[in-house]
């Protein structure tokens, strides 16, 4: 395997992705990611010098809304699926200490 994924990398990506992996899962993730990156490295066989990265496949542009209020009180729908609700909002663990 050309791409060796370190414990630190898996730890770091776990922080970014907000995923907590068990030790077993971490080992598997290291292996899977390494293999995938080896596979993805095939792309380097292609010379893409001067090729514009294509984020949108069709040249569609300027899709706008007019600045007009179309929505009314949406609180009921917004909160309909809340796992934990308080005072008309979503309850979360305290964000400042």
């Amino acid at each position, binding site marked *: 395997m050309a791409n060796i994924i370190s414990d630190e990398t898996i730890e770091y990506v776990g922080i970014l*992705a*907000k995923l907590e992996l068990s030790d077993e899962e971490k080992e598997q993730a290291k292996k899977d990611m390494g293999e995938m990156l080896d596979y993805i490295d095939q792309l380097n066989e292609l010379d893409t010098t001067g090729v514009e990265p*294509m984020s949108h496949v069709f040249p569609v542009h300027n899709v706008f809304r007019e600045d007009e209020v179309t929505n009314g009180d949406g609180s009921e729908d917004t909160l309909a699926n809340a*796992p934990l609700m308080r005072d008309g909002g979503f309850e979360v*663990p*305290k964000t400042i200490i």
Partner: protein
Amino acid sequence: MFLMSLTAVELGKRIQNKEVTAVDATREALAAIAAREEAVHSFVTVDAEGALARAKQIQERIDAGELTSPLAGVPVAIKDNMCTQGMKTTCSSKILYNFMPTFTAEAVCNLEKAGAVILGKTNMDEFAMGSTTETSAFGVTKNPWNTGHVPGGSSGGSCAAVAAEECSYALGSDTGGSIRQPSSFCGVTGIKPTYGTVSRYGLIAYGSSLDQIGPIAKDVTDCATILEIISSHDSKDSTSVKREDTHFTEALVDDVKGMKIGIPRDYFGEGLNTEVKEAVLAAAKELEKKGAIVEEFDLGLVEYAIPAYYVIACAEASSNLARFDGVKYGYRTEEYDGLHQMYKKSRSEGFGAEVKRRIMLGSFVLSSGYYDAYYLKALRVKALIKKAFDEAFAKYDVILGPAAPTTAPKLGASLSDPIQMYLGDIYTISVNLAGLPGISLPCGTDSQGLPIGLQLIGDCFKEKNIIRAAYAFEQTRDYAHSPIAAQEKGGVS
């Protein structure tokens, strides 16, 4: 039980002619579901009561002459990644186990306006990540042709439901082949439309730049009819394209004289099952016999589509799936100490292994220091792939090839080796990268009796070309669009 053996359009005609009612059709569908779900497990949610109530209302409107759509009163199954107001939508994930959307996806709204009777929501690979429908948190779906095999994925539930005659037709979504590959495995017909043809509003995103909703049905006529109904320019989806030419049923013409069909040599190399290869090339011969000009050519870059796809799709997925955090909806872990642990535990317990694998990969390729090497590189390769297709379509009206390298693998055979599983999407993935339309339709069965799928790819906005070619090919076969129909015919066709 025979109404579910009819194509959606045939059933629609009988309903319009007052030979049968929407309620009759819905009852039959529900009976079929009751009979076959244990073996097939196509559905995550079946809304029997609601479906019957809707069927009754729709029949009243048909009787009043208000609903004249060809599919009015016809029962449909919806892949569980499309929001349905008041009907649970889970993406086959624990993290959305109880999610009740407050609005309905635009494509489903379009069906409802046309009088469709929604039966329920079909099983899928979790968040559409997978090619077998085995990554669902709610159990695997089995291939109705042989329940020891997978139905393909990620729209495996939708394709299996159509093949098992549990519904008249279904909606699926296709990010890298998720309509065409399971259609191929289940012996049904499915279209992945040009990107932007069907609104993505209400489709729970996997890879936003690749996702498209499309029809899955018993034949090409059904697919063209459904696609005509679900296509719309939607001001709620900025990537929705304004199109004039969405009268797809006009292309249901048995005439391919002079149509230029290209067969990419690179689709017939290593890894392609011989039986699949023979069936697909035989299909090309049939079209040639009908007057199409069939030619081999080199498309190029085929092997690079999969790595480019996994970079782009996983990167987008890592961002799209960030919203599932236990705050606003869905699963939240029971016990936690502080915000970050709440996030991590909810997500780690809520997502399955394949989803986590792709989120990790996607987060990594976007992370500081790797963006250029992976993400931008993949976008550049995407541009090259698009260019290769542009060049091909300068010469050909349609590209013909297999939908998948094999027929449906056995249950449990694919998940152990992710890359091997990803390779199964080799013929479908580049179509999504280039935003093109593709259709998969049955073109035979292998020695085990499992269906083989033919894929026809068109230039962007040229669905009519592939519909016409597919329709013409379909006329050449005595056609069994389900294992049940095949049995009735006394064997496979």
